[in-house]
């Protein structure tokens, strides 16, 4: 007899409203693709699919292998060993995270292709008939994406090694295992959930990559979707490919669950003392330094130098009033998207705090699914949904107009669908750190729930809110396919400019906007690095 309790549907309804756009987009893709003409499917399977599937699979497998090998070994070296320059490399190896894959890709092609600076110099040195392996190959692309995405694995593995490494290794040593046997037998199996998580992130990023594969003219699902959209103007084909790509994403997620084994991420023990690092002396130490230096140089230093040089060369000619527009457009889009994502993340986080029900929880899961869905897929879905709505408006109001398609609203919808999860993570973490008794204390002092959000949660969420804004802001700055496919006519951003210049092979003129993106991308990486290292010192 709980008759006196009014139903508390508000939070659940709010959460479902936030999840609605994502649901609509997914429904549109499934509906559109399954409703497609059978002849079209036959055409697809015959001419496109085999190559696209093989290419995508090869790329994902290759990139994951390279990223896991680089990330795990570097994480182990910097977390559990001592060698010259370890302190520097420990944080410097995060920096390549600031370089989007498409930037690394065009820098690699520009410098390592036949006419590029490096092969030219090598031929001058070793003779004109020197055979330099071509960079524009599957192997070359895999290497580029591997160097661009190893930091995800590095980040996760390093976290695992720092929290568990030293203590567990000491236990292994007391049982008679040397440090290297301990690594293989104990530390890596222990870090398996983290490694699986890092590898899954890399696989997702590779599946979603559009810019780098475009630079290499390598056909994957994302470029096939883009071409179907713009080349063939076949919405059905694009939707069908999008649905298949979603299938690949689902397989990746399932694979991660399997690869984790029965292990789970457990909270780091606090109060473990500073690890005693394994000293690599003499040549072994220098070998470790050289390895770390090579990865740092290839992933960040050399591309950075190249970008800076080219940018300086073209700046006097290129840097004109248009750039002010690009930058303002980019910044305002990023700011709008960041605020929108934050607002929705707060609604979602607060709803989940007020209501522990299944519906609210499921709504949050769906609303934040976008981070696993490639931008090209989301773009196709968003345009389809808005096209349908426009059609409905036309039927109701008459006329020919497009109210939603090709507006800033469409673009923002795409960004929010893709990056809500990025804002939700820090917001959720912030909420989790606020003890429920604080809310009860505020209520017993006379505050209604909506006042509590403003007077208690927002001030306490401070850092989480800042992190959420920064992460979304920078992700939107880098974002390429959604911007390219849903932007209003003439709305060029820095990333679009990079795409257009690289599409024409004008590498040096792409350097200026690319450099701006990289510099902005350093902010969240610096923040992240600072936090990681502070946490490591505290442990």
């Amino acid at each position, binding site marked *: 007899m709980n008759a006196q309790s009014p139903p508390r549907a508000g939070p659940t309804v709010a959460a479902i409203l936030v999840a609605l756009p994502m649901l609509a987009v997914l429904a549109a893709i499934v509906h559109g693709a399954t409703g497609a003409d059978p002849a079209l499917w036959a055409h697809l399977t015959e001419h496109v699919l085999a190559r696209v599937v093989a290419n995508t699979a090869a790329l994902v497998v290759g990139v994951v292998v390279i990223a896991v090998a680089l990330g795990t070994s570097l994480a182990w070296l910097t977390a559990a060993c001592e060698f010259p320059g370890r302190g520097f490399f420990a944080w410097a190896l995060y920096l390549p995270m600031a370089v989007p894959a498409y930037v690394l890709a065009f820098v690699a092609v520009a410098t390592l292709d036949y006419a590029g600076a490096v092969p030219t110099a090598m031929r001058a040195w070793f003779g004109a008939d020197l055979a330099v392996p071509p960079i524009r190959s599957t192997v070359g692309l895999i290497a580029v994406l591997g160097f661009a995405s190893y930091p995800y694995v590095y980040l996760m593995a390093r976290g695992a090694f720092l929290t568990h490494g030293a203590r567990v290794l000491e236990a292994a040593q007391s049982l008679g295992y040397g440090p290297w046997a301990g690594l293989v037998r104990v530390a890596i199996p222990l870090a398996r959930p983290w490694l699986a998580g890092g590898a899954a992130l890399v696989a997702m990023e590779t599946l979603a990559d559009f810019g780098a594969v475009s630079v290499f003219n390598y056909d994957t699902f994302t470029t096939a979707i883009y071409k179907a959209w713009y080349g063939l103007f076949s919405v059905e084909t694009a939707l069908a490919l999008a649905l298949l790509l979603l299938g690949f994403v689902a397989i990746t997620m399932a694979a991660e669950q399997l690869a984790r084994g029965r292990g789970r991420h457990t909270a780091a023990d606090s109060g473990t003392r500073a690890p005693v690092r394994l000293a690599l002396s003499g040549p072994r130490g220098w070998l470790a330094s050289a390895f770390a230096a090579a990865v740092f140089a290839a992933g960040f230093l050399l591309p950075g130098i190249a970008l800076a040089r080219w940018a300086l060369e073209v700046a006097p000619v290129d840097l004109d009033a248009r750039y002010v527009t690009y930058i303002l457009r980019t910044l305002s889009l990023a700011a709008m998207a960041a605020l929108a994502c934050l607002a929705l993340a707060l609604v979602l986080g607060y709803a989940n705090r007020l209501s522990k029900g299944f519906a609210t929880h499921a709504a949050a899961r769906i609303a934040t699914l976008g981070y696993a869905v490639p931008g090209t897929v989301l773009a196709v879905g968003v345009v389809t949904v808005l096209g349908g709505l426009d059609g409905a408006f036309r039927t109701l109001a008459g006329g020919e107009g497009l109210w939603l398609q090709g507006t800033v609203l469409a673009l923002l919808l795409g960004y929010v669908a893709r990056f809500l999860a990025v804002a939700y993570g820090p917001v959720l973490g912030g909420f989790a750190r606020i003890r429920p008794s*604080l809310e009860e204390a505020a209520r017993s002092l006379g*505050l209604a729930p909506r006042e509590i959000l403003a007077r208690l949660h927002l001030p306490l969420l*401070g850092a989480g809110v800042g992190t959420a804004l920064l992460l979304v802001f920078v992700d939107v700055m880098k974002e390429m396919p959604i911007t390219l496919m849903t932007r209003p006519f003439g709305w060029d951003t820095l990333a679009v400019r990079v795409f257009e210049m690289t599409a024409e092979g004008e590498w040096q003129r792409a350097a200026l906007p690319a450099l701006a993106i990289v510099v902005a991308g350093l902010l969240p990486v610096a923040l992240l690095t600072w936090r990681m290292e502070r946490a490591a010192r505290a442990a």
Partner: protein
Amino acid sequence: MRLELREVSRSFPGVAALDRLSLTVEAGRIGCLLGPSGSGKSTALRCIAGFERPDAGEVLAGGERLSGAGAWVSPERRRIGMVFQDFALFPHLDALANVAFGLRDLDRGARRRRAQELLDLVGLSAEAGRYPHELSGGQQQRVALARALAPRPRLVLLDEPFSNLDADVRTDLAQAVRKALRAEGATALLVTHDQREAFAIADEIGVLRGGRLEQWDVPWKLYHSPRTRFVADFVGEGTFIPGTVVGPGRVATELGVIEGQLTRDQPPGTLVDLLLRPDDVIHDDVSELRAEVVERAFRGAEFRYTLRLPSGATALSFVPSHHDHAIGERIGIRLDAQHLVGFPRGWDAGRE
């Protein structure tokens, strides 16, 4: 203001946390719910504060119905202050701002003055500008109390207020809390599992067990005149020995006929289990009665001896610590009981 609970029940899946709980705390008094963990005492507090909705029953404060019979007042409108077990101070506000947080209808100056007044009352005038993490546990506790008292609530609830503190500050703090509540003329209800805290603060104490109130009384009567075996066990120490009522205020036991005042109306011939408190059993070297020491615990000023009586029954005794006896020794004892608490033999667990 007067707090009244009428037959309040609340159950969670599989457990009845509160089972028809009724109690009254008169205005200006300090009440306490005492019970082991899981006895429902925190649920009772949360039902009064409005964080839980009772399934049945009524909660009234100062005559206003807060819940029950179709009424529901949300927690923020109840004007009931609460001191949380973890203190729940707002980490982004200093001590003064924490205390001022609930003072919403006053202007700035008045808010500040009132907050400062409360900090003075709890002896933290100098710590006004400190943030919670810069305060000791005891100081945080006093800020939490000041914060709860500041808006002049109708009632103050304290949820295990001392459980997160070191033992040596508890007693002092309990006195300080009592003084502050008195100074504000507040009506208060405290819940705790620690009888010493309850005795130190409360005017009246209710013992809760499995969501039901076993006894609501002043501390002295709770100890000397427990109504159930559970209360006798939970409040203070003691053991039971078999006996037979032989006359008004006379119970025959293996230790002879004990005279005192029977707390229950029991006719001669009733077989009882008689409660022996450790302070009823007095060590006396010249006594004929002998008991064997089976356990001893040194407590500084005294020993607590566990004794085996001739029949095999057990008794406890507090003995000044210069009487140092070894385990196995037989020592003389005599009984000095004023209150005879006998429960009918075989009458288990004890509910009336």
